[in-house]
């Protein structure tokens, strides 16, 4: 906790952005209210009488339910049952390797219907070891009868592989594997993306994943919850990416370490599922254990369109205890970037207009969803003109790729995003995968092999993240990325009609 105290001063405090941060006293207030409503009774704690139900945050409730506890408290170590385990080509082979070493050659996985395997990291590469890793996954799927495997065998044309999806976190959502109230673990730090559905979702290493493969359980510590209330009118030039960059800039890359980050308020309620995913996706960039948005009709509609499986949503209780509460008036937030080399290195995009750039990248689990491309296309169409730097487009999944070619962009004369991108001089949308977000093998599409400057809709900008160790990455929203492509510098999307 100590690392959070003292981080309260806001560089925006003097510029009209109201920002209210205080250690929550909600529990205390709750007790006071009860004292007025009820006669003074015994000195026993309410929880011991069995009369008063323990108020919990939604993260606590999900973990209580999955550990057969009536209530859990932050800091408690629990064995949680696991609803889904996701792995991919980078960590899957090692996870199965550990499972086989520790449980034995003849062991079976705990439930082949609850394991989801999504090759996505290093697919369109000639690296033989990368290709072998997908082959290992296929062998494991066959050996253990695993139900969900989004395979690719023909790398020359991804469209020839109907099962292949692309980036795991987006595919999980699109294929109906994200459901309110569930517990999801994945061997990828951005597994927290699924918290957008009101579920507990977090990233783990191969050893923990190997343990889950054998047992369907994991020992975890219940995190305390930080609450972020987003209110005010969302300006047309902002996207969810700006809001999460604002939050990470405020609390730093370690501000959420070991904690749940709950996002709530009218701005979240008005958001689409894809925008909520963008917010939850990046909680790990603040060190958070999980991010979560309350499930509502928007969530239920999205989920019901994709799965018939039942689910049970849980909501935070009104008297739940939060370790900290932050409030943001989003109408005061400016289009933001995270400057090199840290996701919390927050700058107003307009203050970086003198930064000349070499390229723009739109893609990844964070910024490669359908709405991300629609937003970029809309800005390019309205502003007109040609991009001044190479602009790389990597749809997260095959579905996103199809949307680029199939859906008209709202307010753009019936044009598709693909048509707008082509007219503006962007590169042709690449086969869906994680691609250059994390560098990858040398022949990865759009990898930064030179020490260039890139504006990117991805999630991390630590040294070397997109390839070259001396490359510089500015993290930004799709609007800001598209505006920057037109400017040839970091740009404020308001200067381009957003």
């Amino acid at each position, binding site marked *: 906790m100590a690392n959070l105290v003292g981080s309260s001063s806001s560089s925006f405090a003097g510029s009209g952005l109201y920002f209210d941060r205080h250690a929550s006293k909600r529990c205390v207030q709750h007790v006071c209210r009860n004292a007025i409503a009820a006669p003074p009774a015994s000195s026993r704690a309410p929880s011991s009488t069995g009369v008063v139900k323990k108020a919990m945050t939604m993260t606590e409730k999900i973990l209580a339910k999955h550990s057969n506890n009536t209530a859990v408290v932050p800091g408690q170590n629990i064995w949680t049952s696991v609803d889904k385990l996701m792995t991919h080509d980078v960590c899957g082979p*090692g996870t199965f390797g550990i499972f086989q070493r*520790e449980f034995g050659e003849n062991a079976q996985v705990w439930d082949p219907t609850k394991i989801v395997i999504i090759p996505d990291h290093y697919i369109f590469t000639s690296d033989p070891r990368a290709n072998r890793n997908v082959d290992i996954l296929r062998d494991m799927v066959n050996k253990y009868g695993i139900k969900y495997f989004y395979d690719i065998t023909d790398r020359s044309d991804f469209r020839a592989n109907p099962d292949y999806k692309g980036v795991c976190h987006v595919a999980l959502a699109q294929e109906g594997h994200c459901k309110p109230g569930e517990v999801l673990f994945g061997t*990828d730090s951005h597994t927290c993306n699924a918290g957008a559905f009101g579920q507990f979702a977090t*990233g783990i290493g191969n*050893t923990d994943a190997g343990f889950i493969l054998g047992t369907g359980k994991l020992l975890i510590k219940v995190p305390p919850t930080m609450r972020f209330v987003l209110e005010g009118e969302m300006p047309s030039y902002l996207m969810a990416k700006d809001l999460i960059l604002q939050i990470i800039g405020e609390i730093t890359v370690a501000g959420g370490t*070991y904690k749940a980050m709950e996002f709530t308020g009218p701005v979240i309620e008005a958001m689409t599922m894809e925008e909520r995913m963008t917010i939850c996706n990046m909680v790990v960039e603040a060190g958070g254990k999980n991010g979560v948005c309350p499930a509502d009709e928007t969530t239920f509609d999205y989920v019901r369109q994709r799965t018939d499986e039942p689910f049970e949503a849980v909501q935070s209780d009104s008297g739940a205890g939060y370790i900290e509460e932050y409030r943001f008036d989003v109408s005061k937030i400016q289009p933001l970037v995270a400057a090199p080399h840290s996701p919390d290195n927050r700058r107003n995009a307009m203050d970086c207009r003198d930064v000349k750039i070499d390229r723009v990248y739109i893609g990844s689990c964070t910024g490669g969803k359908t709405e991300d491309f629609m937003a970029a296309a809309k800005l390019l169409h309205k502003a007109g003109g040609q991009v001044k730097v190479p602009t790389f487009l990597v749809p997260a999944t095959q579905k996103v790729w199809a949307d680029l070619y199939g859906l008209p962009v709202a307010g753009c004369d019936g044009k598709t995003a693909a048509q707008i991108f082509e007219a503006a001089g962007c590169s042709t949308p690449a086969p869906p995968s994680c691609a250059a977000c994390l*560098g990858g093998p040398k022949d990865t599409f759009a990898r930064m092999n030179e020490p260039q400057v890139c504006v990117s809709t991805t999630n991390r900008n*630590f040294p070397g993240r997109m390839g070259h160790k001396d490359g510089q990455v500015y993290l930004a929203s799709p609007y800001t990325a598209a505006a920057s492509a037109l400017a040839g510098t970091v740009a404020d999307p308001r200067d381009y009609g957003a």
Partner: protein
Amino acid sequence: MAVGALAGSAALPHTRSVLRTRSNVAQVPLQQAPRHALRVERTRIVSAAGSSNGKAANTRVIRGPCYVTRDNIDTDQIIPAEYLTLVPSKPEEYEKLGSYALIGLPTELYQSRFIENGQMKTRYPIVIGGQNFGCGSSREHAPVAMGAAGAKVVVAQTYARIFFRNCVSTGELYPCETDVRLCDELQTGEEVEVDMNKDVLTVLSTGKQYPLKPIGEAGPVVDAGGIFEYARRTGMIKIA
């Protein structure tokens, strides 16, 4: 904080009192056996002599030159993504992974390299960090690469959650914490001794000492070589 964050540590039976009584100093050899080999060896020792064997306790005292890093050393700097095609559970690829440990640190800031050109192993068994060591990806390749290279312990102010957990689960590294900003105090190459029995780091040339936070119940798990071996030794996993 982070020590307690090894989920379930409180629920595990522990052997710390036994281990704590040992204080022999283990000289860290420059060339070390791969962790997989050690794991097999340790298993044999334990089955012969039980958990009172002093071998594990000796690993809590580590002496050698330290390698000093700064704040927010993320997993892309510890093991860049281009090397993630190596599968850590395959012994030969485990070794190779080690040869790339910390290769992503910017050259201008880190002119002494953690692993010298052409080498497979590091000469630094001790890595010093600042805040938030190991942030970023959940890749277990990060502590595995450092362990495979021959690092034994990281001493940092704080850790990213998943990295800490992966250190303990794999048993590759002791993730030791301190309130002291050692990255401002120490220089790469200085000979130090990390004593996790006495919770102190000593600079050997001057005798200057810095307090460490107790490794707590993460210690016995790393001693054992990870959660699975620990669970077997303590009866949590029944061995047929």
